[in-house]
């Protein structure tokens, strides 16, 4: 009885303790289910729910025939979690032969792999970005702790150096950094997507778990106006010509006359370190300016015809030397004082004759036409860093500049501007904005044509036709004889311009000058299909440095290739100049 009397309080005590324990448990459960529920739910989701970013494919760049000029291909990026790496130096050494790292880069990698290092060794450190499959497999085979990988697209240009100055480049993150890759970065870049799903500890998707997919939107593709094969041939011909002319560099622009579509745009420069001529990484034809020289005489002559102050047979007595303002000018070729028609002034590229005609226009008239032909403002090509050129208002022309602009000195243009100016005559007097992009291809695979280049009438069709005839004479009987092509009628103009020095003026201390030698023309002249500009930078100062000598032959080579590529049949057999009437 005594024992049972003591048992009861014990049972009550146990019950009390159990009740208190149960109450605590209940309270804790209540707290877990209410106040802390959200935090625990979140922690659980963090363990199960995996969010994967689905990268959007960057749009490809095609040439006009649909051949890839730039595409993004998945590669493998190797990364490290320094928290899991016990031996950073050993890991870096193991990776070195696979990744081809030298001692210095191995040391830098080891530093990155060290947790808490000053560089970026936290939870994530790049080991190697966008390596090919072979390298990725070798790295995986090493089974190094803390080393992982993920797919990442890399930009490739299948034709290597071809049109690199135009296409441009991207950084490792796929953002455009130069050229059309930069100019059309927003168009080419897509919208990344997201895949959210629940995964178990083994990494497998939990069946019927949470699943959400936001599909990535691929970037639009660009279809360029360039013809890949013509671009290749043009680049090769340009490099060969610059090399053989022992020049510093050169540019070629090939345009479709009616549309302003740029079919090829080649840039070459001599590498000062190796001495070899290579395709330039900069699109000099759009960003570099130079004085066009006599090619710009076409503007003066066309303006005179359009304003009605002269016709192609208007005649002046032209000496070989004449004072304008405070300077005595001379023609490149010595000749007696002789009567010259406007056609002959252009055919013989007489500076004195051109300045004489320019006086009839006045400075304002000259400036108005230079601007109408596209000088002094961006061509509308839309290329990043495209230059405006230099064309001061007529009121600010100093001294002899008033006269020299008439023959292309004292005004600076890009090769694209000069080609577009010549194309205005080829195109019946209508200026058409050059363009590089023909269309975009949306995510639905449909082509969206780019807007055509802006057009404006600069010359009447009759004046353009008159200029067409004058420029044919340049090739048949003038300075441009080297631009003749059997079977095709060529119209064009030579130009040999002094190259301005960075320090000002044209001649160095010893009186030596540097030149830009050019030829701009179109073919077939009867029904122009192609307008081509060739400019050679710094041909040797002595000997062959004229546009007729170093630029016109390249014009012929490029034109032949382009005509063949566009399947333009010849207009006659043999020399087309033999049937044209001779001009005085």
């Amino acid at each position, binding site marked *: 009885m005594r024992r049972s009397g003591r048992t009861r309080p014990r049972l009550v005590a146990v019950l009390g303790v159990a009740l208190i324990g149960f109450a605590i448990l209940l309270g804790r459960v209540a707290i877990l289910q209410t106040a802390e529920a959200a935090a625990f739910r979140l922690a659980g989701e963090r363990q199960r729910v995996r969010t994967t970013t*689905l990268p959007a*494919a960057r749009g490809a760049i*095609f*040439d*006009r*025939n*649909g*051949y*890839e000029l730039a*595409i*993004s*291909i*998945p590669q493998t990026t190797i990364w490290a979690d320094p928290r899991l790496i016990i031996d950073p130096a050993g890991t870096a050494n193991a990776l070195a032969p696979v990744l081809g790292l030298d001692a210095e880069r191995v040391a830098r990698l080891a530093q990155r792999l060290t947790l808490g290092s000053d560089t970026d060794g936290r939870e994530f450190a790049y080991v190697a970005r966008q390596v090919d499959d072979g390298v990725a497999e070798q790295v995986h085979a090493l089974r190094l702790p803390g080393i992982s990988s993920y*797919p990442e697209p890399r930009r*490739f240009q*299948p*034709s*290597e*150096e*071809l049109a690199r100055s135009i296409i441009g480049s991207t950084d490792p993150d796929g953002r455009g950094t130069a050229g059309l890759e930069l100019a059309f970065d927003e168009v080419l870049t897509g919208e990344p*997507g997201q*895949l959210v799903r629940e995964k178990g500890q083994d990494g*497998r*998707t*939990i*069946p*019927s778990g949470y699943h959400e*997919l936001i*599909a*990535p*939107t*691929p970037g639009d*593709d660009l*279809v360029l106006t360039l*013809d*890949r*094969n*013509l671009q*290749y*041939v043009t680049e090769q011909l340009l490099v060969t010509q610059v090399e053989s002319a022992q020049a510093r560099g050169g540019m070629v622009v090939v345009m479709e006359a009616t549309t302003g579509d740029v*079919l090829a745009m080649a840039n070459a420069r001599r590498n000062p370190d190796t001495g070899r001529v290579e395709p330039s990484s900069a699109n000099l034809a759009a960003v570099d300016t130079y004085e066009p020289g006599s090619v710009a005489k076409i503007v003066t002559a066309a303006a005179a015809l359009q304003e009605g102050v002269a016709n192609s047979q208007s005649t002046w007595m032209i000496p070989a030397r004449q004072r304008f303002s405070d300077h005595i000018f001379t023609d490149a070729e010595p000749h007696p004082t002789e009567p010259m028609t406007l056609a002959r002034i252009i055919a013989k590229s007489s500076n004195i004759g051109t300045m004489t005609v320019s006086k009839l226009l006045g400075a304002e008239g000259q400036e108005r036409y230079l601007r109408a032909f596209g000088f002094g403002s961006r061509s509308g090509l839309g290329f990043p860093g495209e230059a405006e050129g230099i064309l001061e208002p007529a009121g600010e022309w100093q001294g002899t500049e008033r006269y020299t602009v008439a023959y292309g000195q004292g005004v600076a243009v890009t090769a694209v501007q000069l080609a577009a100016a010549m194309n205005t005559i080829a195109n019946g007097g209508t200026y058409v904005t050059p363009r590089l992009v023909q269309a975009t*291809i949306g*995510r*639905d*695979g*449909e*082509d969206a044509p780019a807007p055509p280049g802006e057009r404006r009438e600069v010359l009447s069709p009759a004046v353009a036709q008159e200029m067409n005839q004058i420029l044919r004479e340049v090739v048949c009987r003038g300075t441009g004889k080297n631009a003749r092509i059997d079977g095709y009628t060529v119209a064009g103009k030579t130009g040999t311009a002094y190259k301005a020095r960075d320090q000002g003026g044209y001649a160095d201390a010893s009186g030596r000058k540097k030149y830009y030698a050019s030829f701009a023309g179109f073919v077939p002249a009867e029904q122009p299909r192609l307008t081509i500009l060739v400019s050679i930078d710094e041909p040797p100062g002595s000997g062959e440095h004229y546009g007729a000598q170093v630029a016109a032959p390249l014009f012929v080579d490029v034109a*032949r290739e382009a005509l*063949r*590529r*566009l*399947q333009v*049949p*010849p207009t006659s057999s043999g020399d087309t100049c033999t049937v044209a009437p001779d001009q005085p």
Partner: protein
Amino acid sequence: MVPRPRRRTIGLLVAALCAVLFVGFLGLAAVQMTLAQNQQRLDRLEREVQDARDYYDRLRLAVARLQSPDYIVPTATERLGMVPATSPLYLTPSADVVNHVAAATGEVVSDAASGTGAGRPEWGAVKEISGRAP
């Protein structure tokens, strides 16, 4: 005291319930297993789709490289000894001949001409499909 027949009935009911529960759980396990298997299959198919896309992209690059003039021209000139045609001969067929050929073969399209888009004949359809997520 429950009568013997009633106790027997209850026993049968309990046994039947247990059997139903057993079969139900077995069924649930089977469904769960099928779900897991299908999910694995789905994951595997997604991986295969992605691998196929990557493979397509790599082949696309390989084809583009093989088609590039950088590859073709040296191969043609140096390895095969070919030379570019310098003077192509242009033939001017009569309208009757052109019409006859066009009627027999459909549209006459030349791969050599510029601006034909011959390099990407099916790209539009491929892009529309490849743009979709798995």
